[in-house]
């Protein structure tokens, strides 16, 4: 297959080196006309680097790219677009205060009069059923609508190859389905699609071929309709993943954290409201919350940490104490620690030293403030302990948080909370963008903390992480939490359905949707 002469795109032994890392190591595969080709792999497997070279953002250090059989050098994105390669990025580069039409016009290489452009946009929109109002201001649009702008922008160039970088990570299940319809139609018209994702069920549903990368190397090129999700996951993760050591005879104790009918209105037009969230975490239990991004995970974390308060004091209790009206500081004193998703700027202040960052959350529990003055010695000592216990690669407590790599900072933040021995720890995306070694260390620390009797809530989009880490699991969708299920007898299919919004009561889910997508 790799030697077919008429492949739309063919990569031969592509290699890309970064200081200290081999991001792509002799990667070869080809994409046929009209093929939807998945590029599958974990964070850091080299998927993004590879497509950046195809789109001309980076240049390969070795190997060659062939386009319709001819060897090419893609000097920059403009050259890529000229060849007929379009790309829709994971993070959109849109101008919020400007209209849809203006955003598309700004992204076009050719200067097209506004009226003509609008006509062409309408043509593309009707052809593919992509609904957009050209004169709407982008800031009033939902994430899915914003992605449609990027897609329309790419389609206006009549691409022969469309690269989609994790397009569904921010979409609602309904928007994902709409996107798939568009992509299938494009493919049927002969456009090749390179689809980057780590979501196996999507790849099985959409793609004709899957190329799996691990650690920069091509592991396999396979047919996803023949493979199972499990077999692809094994290829993606590799056999050498560290297993988590769970202590022998670990037992969950009495009920610790009880969340009972927690409601929270949406914080912004496009935020998600929490609706009757109810769950119980026992001593020594790790409770996982799965779900597609943007289904209320952030709102739930903020509600549990105390950054947003509930009206009902009894909605959140720990050991019977009502926490619903307590502030974040009071909750920390009561033993509830939390680690938000965003490391820089939320969990830690990048410009502060690690010692100062430890003061931010540990000052009360560990007595780092005396008579209104910071006890710098205590802060430095504690930061040093965290660094050595969690093997954080940092020069010392005086290093700024911003100078640490993502994985090391995450280890530090997790360590800072765990070493305070919280009764309840709530973490969101504990291993997001963290390399495998650091992820294993963080997982082990969570398991150990649970073994010491704490109740732990892990909010994550990574279902595999939750399945390996947690005792109990529930799925959040549109701000509603499913009933909890034991991980040991959890059914992947059922979890997938819950993540896609199929609750016990489908009508309720259907009614929920408009609130989220069109609050404006």
């Amino acid at each position, binding site marked *: 297959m790799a030697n077919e002469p008429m492949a739309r795109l063919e990569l031969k032994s592509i290699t890309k080196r970064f200081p200290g890392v081999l991001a792509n190591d002799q990667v070869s595969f080809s994409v046929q006309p009209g093929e939807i080709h998945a590029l599958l792999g974990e964070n850091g497997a080299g998927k993004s680097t590879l497509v950046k070279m195809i789109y001309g953002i980076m240049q390969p250090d070795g190997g060659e790219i062939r386009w319709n059989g001819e060897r090419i050098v893609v000097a920059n994105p*403009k050259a890529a677009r000229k060849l007929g390669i379009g790309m829709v990025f994971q993070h959109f*580069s*849109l*101008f*919020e*205060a*400007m209209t849809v039409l*203006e955003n598309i*016009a*700004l*992204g076009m290489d050719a*200067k097209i009069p506004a009226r003509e452009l609008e006509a062409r946009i309408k043509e593309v929109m009707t052809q593919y059923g992509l609904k957009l109002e050209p004169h709407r201001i982008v800031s009033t649009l939902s994430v899915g609508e914003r992605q449609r702008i990027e897609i329309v922008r790419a389609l206006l160039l009549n691409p022969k190859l469309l690269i989609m970088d994790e397009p569904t990570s921010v979409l609602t299940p309904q928007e994902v389905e709409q996107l798939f319809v568009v992509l299938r139609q494009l493919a049927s018209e002969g456009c090749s699609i390179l689809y980057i994702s780590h979501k196996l069920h999507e790849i099985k549903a959409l793609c004709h071929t899957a190329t799996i990368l691990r650690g920069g190397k091509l592991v396999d090129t396979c047919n996803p309709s023949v493979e199972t999700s499990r077999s692809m996951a094994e290829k993606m993760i590799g056999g050498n993943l560290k297993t988590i050591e769970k202590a022998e005879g670990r037992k969950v104790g009495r009920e610790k954290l009880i969340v009972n009918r927690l409601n929270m209105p949406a914080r912004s037009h496009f935020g998600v409201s929490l609706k009757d969230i109810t769950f119980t975490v026992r001593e020594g239990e790790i409770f996982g919350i799965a779900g597609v991004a943007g289904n209320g995970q952030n709102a739930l974390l903020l509600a549990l940490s105390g950054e947003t308060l509930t009206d009902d004091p009894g909605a959140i209790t720990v050991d019977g104490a009502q926490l619903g009206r307590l502030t974040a500081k009071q909750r920390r004193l009561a033993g509830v620690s939390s680690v938000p998703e965003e490391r820089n700027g939320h969990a830690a202040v990048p410009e502060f030293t690690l010692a100062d960052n430890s003061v931010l959350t540990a000052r009360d529990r560990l007595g780092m403030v005396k008579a209104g003055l910071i006890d710098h010695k205590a802060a430095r000592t504690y930061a040093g302990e965290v660094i050595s216990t969690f093997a954080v690669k940092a020069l010392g407590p005086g290093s700024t948080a911003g100078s640490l790599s993502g994985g090391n900072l995450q280890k530090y933040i997790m360590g800072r909370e765990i070493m305070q021995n919280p009764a309840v720890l709530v973490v969101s995306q504990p291993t997001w963008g963290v390399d495998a070694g650091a992820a294993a260390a963080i997982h082990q620390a969570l398991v150990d903390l649970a073994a010491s009797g704490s109740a732990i809530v892990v909010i994550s989009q990574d279902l595999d992480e939750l399945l390996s880490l947690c005792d109990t699991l529930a799925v959040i969708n549109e701000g509603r939490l499913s009933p909890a299920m034991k991980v040991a007898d959890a059914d992947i299919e059922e979890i997938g359905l819950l993540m896609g919004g199929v609750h016990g009561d489908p009508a309720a889910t259907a009614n929920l949707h408009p609130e989220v997508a069109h609050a404006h």
Partner: protein
Amino acid sequence: MSTEFIIAAIVTIVGLTTPILLAALGELVVEKAGVLNLGVEGMMLMGAICGFGATVSTFNPWLGILGAAAGGALSSMLFAVLVLELNSNQVATGLALTIFGTGLSSLMGLSYTGFIVPVFGSIFPASLASDPYLKVIFGYSPIVYFALIMVPAVAWFLKSTRAGMILRAVGENDLSAHSIGYSVKGVRYAAIAFGGAMAGIGGAYFSMVITPMWAEKMTAGRGWIALALVVFAGWRAGRLLVGAYFFGILMALELYAKAAGFSFLPSQFWAAMPYLMTIVALSVISIRDRSGGNAPACLGKPFLPST
């Protein structure tokens, strides 16, 4: 109130409004490109002295206006280089430009003290310009008409031209504009130069029309009102016109209060009115819309591309 009084009042208000309208229009374009230039006052003074100097040297007020625009634009380039090339803090650099412009204009003005130039007045025939009634339309300096034409021109440029769209894009999301392939620095240089030129012409209105002579600090803080006006107008050219005339009326009230000898309120109160209204307007706007409404998202932030 007699018709003569109303006409005299309108002429006064137009005169007071024109310099702040010009300077604010320039600053509007600068801010739409994402740059906050607090040096308006300094650029106006530079324009005032350069315009005056050029008029004295050439006896041609049109060349005077050109000189004023050049003086304002050149002084703004000092700010532009510091802010765009060295990523210096825009607020501090803008304040420095005001101080610098105040000082340099005073120094340059030393050799022009005592000179008087003919007022750069109406270019219409005297039968129109001096007619007791028609002068309300024809009796102004060409600078006044220029300012009024520039309002729809700037609005049209920002809204309907491709260059204006790119300028707004640069002010809205400089990194995205850069990644698409637009020259963020180039756009900002051009915007800052335009802002400087407009402030310069606004300043020259003082030295060439209002009092056709040079005096130190003759713009008397109008540059600051122009800055507030941009926020007051919510970064829209049309509202800028309304706001400028609102401030013009407030400033005229001070003059009339003094002349009429109103004793129930001290004249200082009227003098403080425009500034007071600025604070009130800014508070009202910030209460109404916490996000700052129409403010360009990159306003005042340095442009730091990763590659």
